[in-house]
């Protein structure tokens, strides 16, 4: 695949990574021998059925989970160091907003923790709320917002830290399809504007293919990578491309990959 990303530096480097949980029923291999390099400016989707370890992999990158073998480097340093340097922004499945904080104050939360001057906090909150089209909602409280808007606040909050790497764990999973399409388009535009590297966990094939530069197909028990599929669509793609044969072909390949991972699981 001849994308520009090939020449860019590696942001996330995963080598022979394994993660084993100890449970009362014995060890569970959540991740097994994962190898993946993610380059600057890429949009990588991790897709797979429940229990395939896609979220676990994201959490290892974010230092929310510790691997038991292999190595992970973020910008050449360990996940722990990267976390302490605030090298990434993390968007969770749920908006995880604080009900007692206004939209603006929610976006300012990580900035307060970083100890930025108040004026900078406010300036950044305004800027990133504008980026996710939430001007005019700064003084609202989370309960006054729809689910989609809440998740946009959450994205603005992750961006406000100004990380080069954005980790997103099924951020639109709980939203209806119309809202999801809309947010996918907004996210793509945001990615194009900011040039961030994105690692995006999803279990929707169209979402993965539409957003990504590469789709990583994973399978469960043990969690491993089945296929890495490039999606060489132009960066300024619109939702219409989902009807094109090229798109359907990539989606088909993703589906085949998922099926291959699933086959031994059905009997």
């Amino acid at each position, binding site marked *: 695949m001849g994308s520009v990303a090939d020449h860019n530096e590696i942001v996330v480097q995963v080598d022979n990574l394994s993660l084993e949980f100890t449970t009362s029923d014995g060890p569970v291999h959540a991740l097994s021998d994962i190898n993946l390099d993610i380059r600057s400016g890429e949009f990588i989707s991790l897709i797979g059925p429940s229990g395939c370890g896609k979220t676990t992999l994201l959490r290892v990158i*974010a*230092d*929310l989970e510790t691997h038991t073998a292999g190595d992970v480097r973020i910008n050449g340093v360990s996940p722990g160091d990267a*976390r*302490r340097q*605030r090298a*990434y*922004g*993390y968007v*969770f*499945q*749920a908006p*995880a907003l*604080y*009900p*007692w*904080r*206004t939209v603006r104050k929610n976006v300012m*939360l*990580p900035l*307060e*923790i*970083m100890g930025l001057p108040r004026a900078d906090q406010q300036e950044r909150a305004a800027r990133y709320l504008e980026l996710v089209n939430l001007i005019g909602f700064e003084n609202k*409280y*989370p*309960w*006054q917002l729809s689910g989609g808007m809440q998740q946009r606040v959450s994205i603005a909050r992750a961006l406000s*830290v100004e990380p080069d790497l954005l980790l997103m764990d099924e951020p639109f999973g709980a939203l209806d399809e119309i809202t999801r399409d809309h947010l996918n388009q907004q996210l793509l535009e945001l990615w194009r504007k900011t040039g961030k590297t994105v690692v995006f966990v999803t279990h929707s094939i169209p979402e993965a293919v539409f957003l990504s530069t590469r789709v990583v197909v994973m399978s469960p028990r043990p969690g491993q990578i089945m296929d890495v599929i490039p999606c060489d669509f132009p960066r300024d793609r619109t939702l219409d491309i989902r009807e094109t044969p090229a798109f359907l072909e990539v989606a088909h390949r993703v589906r085949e990959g998922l099926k291959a991972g699933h086959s031994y699981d059905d009997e």
Partner: protein
Amino acid sequence: MTMSDRLLRQGSFLPIAMVVLSIILIWYVGAIRLNSPQLIDRYEKNGIDWNFTQLATDAWKMERPVLPSPHQVGAELKKTVVDKAITSKRSLIYHAGITLSSSLLGFGLGTLLGIALAIGIVYVTTLDRSLMPWIIASQTIPILALAPMIIVVLGSLGITGLFPKSVISMYLCFFPVVVGMVKGLRSPEPILIDQMRTYSASATQIFFKLRLPSSIPFLFASLKVAIALSVVGAIVAELPTGGQGGLGARLLSGSYYGQITMIWAALIVASVVSALLVTLIGFFERLALRRLNGGQAVLA
């Protein structure tokens, strides 16, 4: 909207009125039943012919009844609450003030102690394992047995007056606060704790920005229990201190002098004080919860 309007509209006025009426009715009947043996004795001794009406009227206006009737307690309350100057030692307001000050001090101290212990338990694993059994054990000791000892021990150390009484209130108050705050400080969802980790927030930042605000609803639920307990504690503490005043002292002298009506009046004032304090906490609770929910009205 006035209070009575709201009560009527919610349809709770009638049920409450019915309950109050039934209690008063049962009270009057009870007064006849409990006071009649004494009266009948007296009638027979003096050879007086009596009927039920006679018995009821006499039972409701006895000077030293076993159970004073509601209007007698009412008269006693009027005499000691309304008619007496609040500086008078015979004013129940004066005594309620004494009890109130020691319960509030004890409530404050107990709340602080409870919060401090809860923070210790949540943050220090050793304390979590070692402290909780002792805290629970502390509440199994009857306060009535413990109170005189606390007063005597502190008294021999030269500490007298308000403080020893507050210690007993504190002893009762801290328990619900510990239990509620431990639960409250642990209430944030894992996702919010993870999120704080991704911001690489310090333990102090997580405490003040997330755990403490999340614990507020739990704290208020505990405070409501604690404040009622603090009044109980203060009254219990006033029993062994005897003549120094307070509603507890009034209860004690009432029973010394066989003034049952006086005991009832003091009891009623004590429960009114407790009810007012619980209502006050409830008011602050609603304010706090509203703020925590971003201005959205919530049921407390």
